[in-house]
């Protein structure tokens, strides 16, 4: 009896291990595949000409993606400007001010926000935000501003849930100590809770950035996809992800390799962001 139990346990454990490792294998395969397809062009055209090149005309031999790197960061920064204050306020409200009932309602609602497909965000952006920007701010409406607004809303769930976790993990004694000193609720939140949860909140912003920089569909639909670096928030722009998705279908030869190189650059950026976010989280845990 004990023997069969042991083999059964053993079997389940090994199956689970295999599945766990296979997810790692996928990551590894994706890595290898992107590098394998993307690196030859770096070798052929030169790292500098790709990363710092200003001209993207892959059918004519120019593979500069510098404007797209800048645009990706601009959009991400714009999304943070829109999403970070809103997300942080929401997280503070949820953990410090809202009653139990409100929390029971808000939490699932926010999870729903995270579940809305990005194409729906993009569609709403095209139908409402783009004409709004065109009519009230000028330009074509397909712009940095529209993309930032849409992405700002899209990164809200990430920012809220991670900052919420960071804020609630601040020990109760900190708050009680502050109240005992005669501080008001807001003074406690502002001077005690937020500073103690700082690294977790920053990590939520960085993970939000990762989400924004990787978003494709909604951005293609509202950003206008022009190749130039935007000079105002009303100019259209193209991000790294949009570049791949836009041209994928028609690309052959070096053009296709160029898109993979775009993928390599994107992968490196995301890796750096995730590393920074993890680093921030770890510091929080150690505290």
């Amino acid at each position: 009896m004990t023997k069969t139990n042991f083999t059964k346990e053993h079997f389940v454990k090994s199956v689970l291990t295999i599945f766990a490792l296979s997810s790692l294998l996928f990551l590894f395969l994706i890595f290898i595949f992107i590098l394998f397809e993307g690196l030859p062009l770096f070798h052929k055209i030169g790292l500098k000409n790709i990363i710092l090149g200003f001209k993207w005309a892959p059918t004519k031999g120019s593979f500069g993606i510098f404007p797209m790197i800048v645009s990706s960061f601009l959009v991400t920064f714009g999304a943070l400007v829109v999403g970070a204050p809103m997300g942080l306020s929401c997280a503070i409200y949820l953990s410090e001010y809202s009653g139990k009932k409100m929390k029971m309602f808000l939490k699932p609602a926010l999870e729903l926000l995270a579940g809305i497909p990005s194409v729906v965000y993009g569609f709403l952006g095209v139908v409402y935000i783009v004409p709004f920007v065109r009519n009230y701010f000028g330009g074509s409406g397909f712009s940095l501003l529209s993309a930032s607004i849409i992405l700002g809303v899209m990164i809200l769930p990430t920012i809220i849930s991670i900052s919420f976790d960071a804020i609630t993990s601040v020990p109760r004694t900190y708050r009680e100590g502050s109240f005992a000193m005669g501080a008001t609720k807001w003074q406690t939140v502002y001077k005690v809770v937020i500073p103690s949860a700082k690294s977790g909140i920053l990590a939520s912003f960085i993970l939000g950035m990762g989400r924004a920089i990787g978003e494709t569909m909604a951005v293609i639909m509202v950003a206008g996809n022009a190749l130039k670096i935007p000079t105002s928030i009303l100019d259209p722009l193209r991000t790294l992800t949009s570049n791949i998705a836009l041209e994928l279908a028609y690309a052959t030869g070096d053009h296709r390799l160029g898109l993979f190189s775009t993928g390599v650059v994107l992968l490196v950026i995301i890796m750096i962001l995730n590393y920074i976010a993890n680093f921030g989280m770890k510091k929080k845990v150690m505290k």
Partner: protein
Amino acid sequence: MSKIIGLFFLILSTILLSSCNDNSTGVTHGKKHTITIAGSTSVMPFIEKLSEHFMVDRPMFRINVQGGGSTAGIMACLNKTIEIGMSSRQLKQGEKVLNSITICYDGISVIVHPENPIRELTLKQIRGIFSGKIKNWKELGWIDRKIDAITREEGSGTRGSFEDLIMKSEEIYDGIMVQDSNGSVREIVATDPYAIAYISLGLVDDRVRSLSIDGVSASLVNIRAKKYKFVRPFLFVTNGPPNKIVQTYIDFILSVDGQNIFKKEGLIGI
């Protein structure tokens, strides 16, 4: 956007097809003859219509029409995963091993929003707009407002034809908006009063207005009289000579009935 979805279905169907058939061309499903066609999103809507007509009279046939883009269609044809590829551009070096058949011609039309009072531009003005030299509608005799020009993405068949036929040696300016299908270009022009773009003539509808170029309007009459010169061929490509089943379909496309449907849809027959 639609192209990515198209590409996805293309891959999916490739897997499905290759898993359930032993002979890859002119597949027979039970008693039905299935032909898979994929490629240019400019050609696709017309071929869908034609295929419906074709299948009504011939219940023995099943035609799958998918998008994906000219290049995707050509590649799939080279790999023999589909029977017919659709292309809205000429074959490049290396693709010429394929057998190509011109099925009809299509005009490229420059379009604006219906509220735009401009009815006509010169070829030089159009080149100026898309090369970024003319940026304001004032320079063309309308209000003081930036021009929202829209082009197609690099590698698109329609963009390739526009570059060959209209831009000639000039390059399309980097600051111009880019969209990835005729449909989304038309959608933007239909909603933005200050937009200008180019699409396939067959897809121009009453939500946008097509402009005359150098005094010649983009009409079928003018194209047939060879006055409107911005015309490109739509191609079918097959890997090697088509088999009997595929040939039946191609014969229908080239027949008077098939060509009449193209004409009704705003294309130009061969």
